């Protein structure tokens, strides 16, 4: 195989001497490029209330249900109502904020048999980042935080706190770069699963969850 590798790299190097590749202006990296962390420190972070408002606006436009609760107990009550009567698949208890693990006693988890997970009716997760600009939830795979929870059930509930909010995706990528490096998979969920493959007509809930709810706590 190293034969193919060397041959391709050799051809690429030769091509670079003759190819007509437009030049890149030297200053194109701008503020978020060369020294992203320093640039980020200069940026004023919008206050949490403004970020929450923006997130809710964007998420609702995508068809996501949003609930903003004043207390941890209210978050748990909301969750209890949402999952009532449904077979629950959840992140491991210690990873659910607001002590919501107590609501998900006996729930299936990421290490349960695959077939059982596939039969779950609702998936309950926390969240590693909520991107206000796009209404996206960032979920980093890790021990006790299986991606199957936000993927297999037809209904996904995410529990989000004020510290999870970021204005832009790049802010999240910078803030959580170490956690990202430790994980094999990070997914940004932006609204329910959808397709428009047939005549552009919007259809919700193809392979992933067709219903997504976000519960904000204090």
């Amino acid at each position, binding site marked *: 195989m190293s034969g193919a590798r060397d041959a*391709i790299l050799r051809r690429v190097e030769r091509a670079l001497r003759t190819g007509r590749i437009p030049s890149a202006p030297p200053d194109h990296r701008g503020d978020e490029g060369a020294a992203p962390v320093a640039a980020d420190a200069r940026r004023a972070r919008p206050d949490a209330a403004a970020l929450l408002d923006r997130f809710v606006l964007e998420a609702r436009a995508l068809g996501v249900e949003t609930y903003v609760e004043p207390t941890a107990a209210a978050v748990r009550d909301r969750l209890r109502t949402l999952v009532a009567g449904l077979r629950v698949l959840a992140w491991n208890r210690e990873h659910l904020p607001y002590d919501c693990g107590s609501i998900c006693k006996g729930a299936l988890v990421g290490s349960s048999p695959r077939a059982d997970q596939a039969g779950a009716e609702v998936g309950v997760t926390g969240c590693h980042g909520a991107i206000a600009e796009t209404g996206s939830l960032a979920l980093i795979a890790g*021990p006790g935080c299986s991606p*199957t929870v936000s993927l297999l059930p037809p209904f996904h509930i995410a529990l989000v706190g004020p510290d999870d909010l970021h204005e*832009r995706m790049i802010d999240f990528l910078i803030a959580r770069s170490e956690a990202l490096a430790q994980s094999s*998979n990070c*997914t940004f969920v932006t609204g329910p699963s959808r397709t428009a493959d047939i005549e552009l*007509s919007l259809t919700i809930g193809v392979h*992933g969850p067709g219903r997504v709810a976000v519960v904000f706590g204090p």
Partner: protein
Amino acid sequence: MSGGFAERAREALGNRQLHIALDRTTAQLGVRRAVGLASLDDADRVRDRARASKMEVLHTLADSLRAFEARLVENGARVHWAETTDDANRIIVEIATKAGVRRVAKSKSMASEETHLNAAFERAGIGVVETDLGEYIVQLAGDRPSHIIMPIVHMTREQVGRVMAQRLSVSYSDDTQTLARYARGQLREEFLQADMGLTGANFGVVENGAICLVTNEGNGRMVTTLPRVHVVLMGIEKLVATMADLDRFLKLLARSATGQKLTAYTTLVRGPRRSGEDSGPDEMHVVLLDNGRSRILAGETAEILGCIRCGACLNACPVYRSVGGHAYGDVYPGPVGSIVTPGIRGLAPFAELPSASSLCGACREVCPVRLDIPRMLLALRHEAVDRTPQPAALRVGLKLFARVASRPRLYRLAAAIARRVLRRRARDGWIRRAPGMARGWTRFRDLRAPAAVTFETAWRRRAARKS
């Protein structure tokens, strides 16, 4: 596929179903793109920077590939290099055989269309199923995709309903919600049973070896989470340098493709499952495909390797909107296909494609990376003309024209004669068959009859009146 572009285009122009389907979608996608871009602050600057960073990666492609490979290996992935489509297919079938794979679930991948990977799997006795709704219907129908992001843009929902009723023994429906539910039911089992997930890559990030995949349906997540083997097949040009660059491209990709701010699922994969994680593949392989890309990089059309496959140029192109994707005769249709296809398959069999454009520039206008597609189409036309011996009549004719045109009195005389002959042939101001050597012009289009008074004469008369 038969004949050349002209023949296929003629067939397409007579296909009413195709026109209904194309009309229902392409214009709408163009509007959605415009609205999507309008929602991006400073969109022009984001595009400039995206273009610059892509060109920079191309300028350093050999080093970038080496660095990317090193990061992939650190992440625990195995890296393979494929010079040709056959090599890629052989490598992937070998990986599957070694791992005892019997079922493969595929997320949408243009690179795998390019290598005809499904046929290779089938020859090896390995089952393979497309899981993107559009690609799944293409597979059921034994058809070919006709758009980069909307594979069945050429089908009406009635046609889709008939295919599903026939192949899945479900009752006929032309309700898209019902059709999507049929597919979900069938494919759910495939995801759970598959031993291998096969994906392309929307982007490969050089600085950390992350593979970025975007899907709206969630199939990309399924095939990278559930099967025990994950194989990525990607062209060597799909790199971005940093996560900041990736962020910029993600802002542009979904907006340009469908008008969304972000695709429903954007996944970053960094190697196989790590210790303690409950899901994810045991092994991950990345196959880097050349297949003519290094040849494209060496020439006039190197810039096209900056394409991020959003499909916006297809929706904007008046030719694509009239003839659809199949007329282009290969995997990549539309303006981008007219450059990529001759690049990877050779110019000779596809020499007509660069001419399948009016050079109106709509493609360059909408391209998120601002690729100068008209310039590259012209460069390929030049190359095609240089390579093919031109007929003697054309060579002599052009020489003759040059002589006449550079002698003003002779030119005026010749023009007067030509004008008289042409005007006599015109009906309702149009000439449908020009005489002599000019006949070639009217083979594919009508010619407007020349005006009674030439511009030059009118100008002189006007000047005379004024004085």
